[in-house]
């Protein structure tokens, strides 16, 4: 079970700020495939991975990173702080 968080337009497109997901995905990319297959709103949000960033347990990671031991996955657009 992992907690998935969505921010900014990813949150708006999916329509949820967070959800718990039962998954056996080995990597972030595998998890994205599972989410895409769920519903159109997920497919739309994850259509272009180059427009997305991912954090695993609150550290930035790559889409090929392993989910082994990860409790929290967050998807969001490139950050615009400052």
């Amino acid at each position, binding site marked *: 079970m992992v907690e998935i*968080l969505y*921010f*900014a*337009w990813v*949150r708006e497109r999916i329509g949820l700020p967070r959800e718990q997901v039962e998954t056996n995905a080995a990597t972030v990319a595998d998890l994205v495939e599972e989410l895409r297959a769920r519903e159109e709103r997920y497919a739309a949000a994850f259509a272009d991975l180059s427009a997305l960033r991912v*954090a695993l347990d*609150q*550290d*930035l990671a790559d889409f090929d990173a392993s989910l082994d031991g990860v409790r929290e996955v*967050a998807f*969001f*657009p*490139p*950050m*615009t*702080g*400052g």
Partner: protein
Amino acid sequence: MDIRVQSAPFDFGAEAGAFATGHDNAGAVVTFAGIVRDDTGSLQRMVIEHYPGMTERALEKIAREATGRWDLKDCLIIHRHGDLAVGEMIMMVATAARHRKAAFEAAEYLMDFLKSRAPFWKKEITGSGTGWVASKDEDEAALGRWSKE
């Protein structure tokens, strides 16, 4: 090192004044403030979303890097989230070092990394609709100059 993530406004003058005193070993203090800007005359307000928990972690990491690299005597980051009006201060950084070059460079470093490595997202509310501010390629490129040879 003082890092604050908050929705409430802050008093830049008071913060800068307090920061600039009390560091007997620092001969230079640099401050920077980021302000909500209206380029088109139609911006009504800005909403800043963030990732509680990761935001603080990311800011601490950036501040620790800068402190080590420029031997800062102190550094301050305040970044707001939530609803902001045009002209309001979004954030500030302050750095204290022995000499000005280190204080200036460290402040620029903090800003460059805050822009694209701290999990904040800006949304603009205008008279004709709303839109998320897109990240700029130049902000990502700006990080390159800080990579150590």
